[in-house]
């Protein structure tokens, strides 16, 4: 039981990082971006490519990677943010301007399929790993064994969330972002440059998604379908927490991660991916504004 809770928190960290970007783009750009899962995939694969060239120094303690991997994470996040902006400029911005704005969701669905196949085309369909080294799980509590990599994932996720909280509450840009998220017109009237904020949202959302993808690659594996498999739990997390709420996305990510992990105790693990969907449908039925969402 305790082991399942630990596993759920590790999965939840990945989901939460992905769901933050999803909830922000959903709220500010007003559409469900199905290509967001591919930001996780690309982040993970960018890191795989970078780790191939940027690998120096010994492994840190019992982690399966060294200091250089931190640099790899930063660079992969930056590349993924660039990809998110590129996708916005090439596809979404054009569609936002036309009068058939509703086509955005379909375009993002098409873009997600294309990006997924770009990964297959470049890296092939087989699963990959960052390291062939075997990570040894250590007991940290009675009945709970985790690897040092997994501890790293949870700690770095927590650090990033605190940093995001400080950014949103203490900096001018963060405050402007929250203002646009609340009310675009009102923010514009007070002199906020909305185009810049949209770019910032893609950078923050894409970067965090990339880190989430790398975490998944570290704790599970890299496959071209990983982002697509995670998109539904991430949407479930964003909806559970309340669309637009960053803290809701974190909470939702943890709840979904725990629920998926714990479900294995009672049901066939083959149905694990359906848990997130069931929770989401239930939430939409009884409490559509989400746990921490705005009250209508």
């Amino acid at each position: 039981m305790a082991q399942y809770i630990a596993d759920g928190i590790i999965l939840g960290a990945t989901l939460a990082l992905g769901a933050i970007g999803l909830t922000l783009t959903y709220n500010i750009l007003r559409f469900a971006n199905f290509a967001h899962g591919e930001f996780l995939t690309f982040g993970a694969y960018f890191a795989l490519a970078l780790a191939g060239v940027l690998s120096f120094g010994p492994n840190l303690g019992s982690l399966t990677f060294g200091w250089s991997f931190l640099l790899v994470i930063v660079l992969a996040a930056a590349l993924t943010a660039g990809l998110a902006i590129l996708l916005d400029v090439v596809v979404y911005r054009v569609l936002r301007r036309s009068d058939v704005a509703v086509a955005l969701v379909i375009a993002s669905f098409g873009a997600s399929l294309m990006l997924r196949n770009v990964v297959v085309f470049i890296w092939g369909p087989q699963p990959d790993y960052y390291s062939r080294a075997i990570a040894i799980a250590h007991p940290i509590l009675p009945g709970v064994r985790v690897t040092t990599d997994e501890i790293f994932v949870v700690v770095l996720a927590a650090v990033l969330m605190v940093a995001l909280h400080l950014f949103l509450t203490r900096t001018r840009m963060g405050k402007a972002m929250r203002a646009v998220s609340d009310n675009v017109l009102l923010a514009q009237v007070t002199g906020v440059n909305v185009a810049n904020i949209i770019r910032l949202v893609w950078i923050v959302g894409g970067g965090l998604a990339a880190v989430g993808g790398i975490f998944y690659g570290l704790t599970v594996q890299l496959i071209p379908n990983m982002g697509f498999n995670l998109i539904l739990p991430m949407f479930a997390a964003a909806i559970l927490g309340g669309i637009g709420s960053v803290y809701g996305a974190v909470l939702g990510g943890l709840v979904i991660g725990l629920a998926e992990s714990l479900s294995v105790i009672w049901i066939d693990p083959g149905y694990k991916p359906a848990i997130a969907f069931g929770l989401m449908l239930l939430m939409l039925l009884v409490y559509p504004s989400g746990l921490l969402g705005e009250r209508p």
Partner: protein
Amino acid sequence: MIGILSYLVFFLIQALVYSIVALGLNLQWGYTGLFNIGVAGFFLVGSYTFAILSGPPYAAHLGGFGLPIVVGVLGAMAAAGLVALIVGIPTLRLREDYLAIATIGIAEVLRLIALNAKGLTGGSRGAQSIPRPFQDVIHSNLLNNAVYLLIVIAVVVVVYYALEAMVRSPWGRVLKAIREDEAAASSLGKSPTSFRLQAFVIGCVVMGLGGALNASFVGFIAPTDFMPILTFEIWAMLIAGGSGNNRGAILGSVLVWAFWTSMGSLTQSVLPSDLQVKGGALQIILIGIVLLAILMARPRGIIGEEAVVSREAQLGGGDGHD
């Protein structure tokens, strides 16, 4: 010659079965503005329901009711409609994107059930020997395919005229009114949620019909036949042909399926066998670029929706700038 002819028959059956699904999607997206990106899921329900109801007894999973093919088809349609109700009721009263998320979710859940509920569906090995009409009477493969093509054409014609009658009726005008201006439509006393649910369920019933016809034609179904790529293909067909136009949906299906299969055989003949997987990926990337280009350049598709002008306006103005 016979080879080309039999391929043409084979191709047209497949394209027209997809056109039935595209017609169902057109009622949802083209006329009502509903994002259903779980098309593959409703197609799956139709396929499996048909296989279970009309198929032979299976050793490993449910089936063997051996019901007449027509009963199987009707059951497939009913099952797809039932699933649509379950998804539609919680989501259709909310913001439109929630339906998109819920439909892609239900398609994945249905695929998981097909994969894991071995006692119901046969799991990853799928269901086999699904019956086809007249298979005991006509033994020639080409002749049997030709008869099946006639049946599919007849079904397409019936579905086309039924949908045309629906969208031209007062009911269809309400759908368009809700799509264009929900507030105005509800101020006239029309419940948007109720009309949306009706259109969604009817569209999914049509998709279930397509699924049953496909299962009967192919004779073998497995969970891998219902990947999200299928949903993407149907969307490409509808958007290329012109959403909001039923003739466009049929035309788009034939064109996109021709493009898709010729791209497939091209990559297969050009690329060496070790690059086949990458060729499949390239195929999807290219058709994705075409779809996005059409979305951006011609959002109304090849044919597009025709303008509907009320009879009074035509009689009164008559000079055509409404």
